[in-house]
């Protein structure tokens, strides 16, 4: 039971290390880093590799942004089996809609309560 916390921490941390290296070493912008990680998660799921990672690391694999790419591919493939080509389009949003809606809603609420600051 305790070991899942450790594997989750290490796998999640390693994904973040990759992101940090993309910033610091590859000098990528935040937007490029984000998109690349989403695409990487999507491709991994296409080869059926992301679900085993989730089984192994739990939230360590579902919390990082790569999981969003995984969800896009996952939804598209699942719906494609049921509804064909149209399912590819509807499936993507079926699985990810909760995440997108939550981001919009919570972002909206937070913007009412807090004022963004940049200074130290």
């Amino acid at each position, binding site marked *: 039971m305790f070991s899942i916390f450790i594997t989750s921490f290490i796998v999640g941390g390693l994904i973040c290390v990759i992101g940090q290296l993309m*910033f*610091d070493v590859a*000098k990528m912008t*935040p937007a490029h880093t984000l998109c690349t990680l989403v695409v990487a998660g999507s491709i991994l799921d296409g080869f059926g590799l992301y679900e085993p990672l989730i089984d192994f690391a739990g939230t360590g694999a579902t919390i990082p942004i790569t999981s969003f790419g995984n969800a896009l591919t996952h939804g598209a493939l699942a719906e494609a089996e049921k509804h064909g080509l149209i399912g590819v389009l509807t499936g993507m949003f079926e699985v990810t809609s909760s995440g997108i809606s939550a981001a919009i809603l919570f972002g909206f609420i937070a913007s009412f309560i807090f004022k*963004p*600051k*940049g*200074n*130290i």
Partner: protein
Amino acid sequence: MVMKGLLTFPSTPSIAATGVTAGPLEKKSPFHVNFDKMFDDERCGMKTNEQGHAKLMEDAIMIALSKVDKVPSDADFLLAGDLVNQMTPSNFSATTVGIPYIGLFSACATSVSSILLAALLTESGMSKLAVAGSSSQHNAIERQFRYPIEYGTQKGDTSQWTVTAAGAAAITPYQEGVPCIERGTFGKAVDMGMTDPLNMGAAMAPAAADTLMRHLSGHNASASDYDLIMTGDLSKVGFSIFKKMVGNQGIKDFQNFSDAGEEYYGGLPEFKAGASGAGCSASIYFSEIYKKMMEKEYKRVLLIATGALLSPLSYQQGDTIPCIAHAVELTMK
């Protein structure tokens, strides 16, 4: 006569007074005790960052004029610039004060290019009182060249912190008892192929080295003639590259060398490599350095302001960062 960018001023125009304003974070600067006015709010009580930026410049101009008991209508020229697109903060401050205005863009080297041009106008007899200066405001500049500060993006150790500050100098024909402008050198735009806007110090160092060497050889001077040789905003990374470069060209003793950007925030780690911005060199040159010249602690100084001549569009298209450095030599007789 070919001058190759070298200037001498036989009439030695004087800097009769200076005015320096700064924002709230600049209280962390060891130099803040000599600033004339400090705002408690980054926007200087205005609605937007850019309006606050204009207010900084406007107040610095008014302070410099008030110290010589003058009002804007007494001044012949205003030479000012900043880093915002089309220099709107300087333009708005010029509208408010109403002095005949020449907008200048030399990026963060505008503090010195404005002094040199004001000295030329004075030398020619066309100006009895000219105000020269430059300014920057942290939020407005970071948003334009990097990311909006609200975005909270990470900054690396080579990145610099744009200061919120403005400096203005009132330049008159020769007067006794104040620092005067003896010589100067306009820099060449130097491009060593750097492309990282989060490492401007390294990009600007070659321009500073080029201007220093041209100034020394062109005016038959040596680095040891000066009580202080101060670069503008090379900061930790750029200043060490600069010292290596001029070291290779025969300068061995760096005791009288310093960099305004490196020292601006007293080396505090949260400001990364140090300060930058058009207000960085202006606010140090026109406060700390000016005061020490008035007290005769410094008799001869060489100020080399450095600027990165990029635009947000140019680096996003992958272009390199051309840089410039202008030098002015001040003496206290």
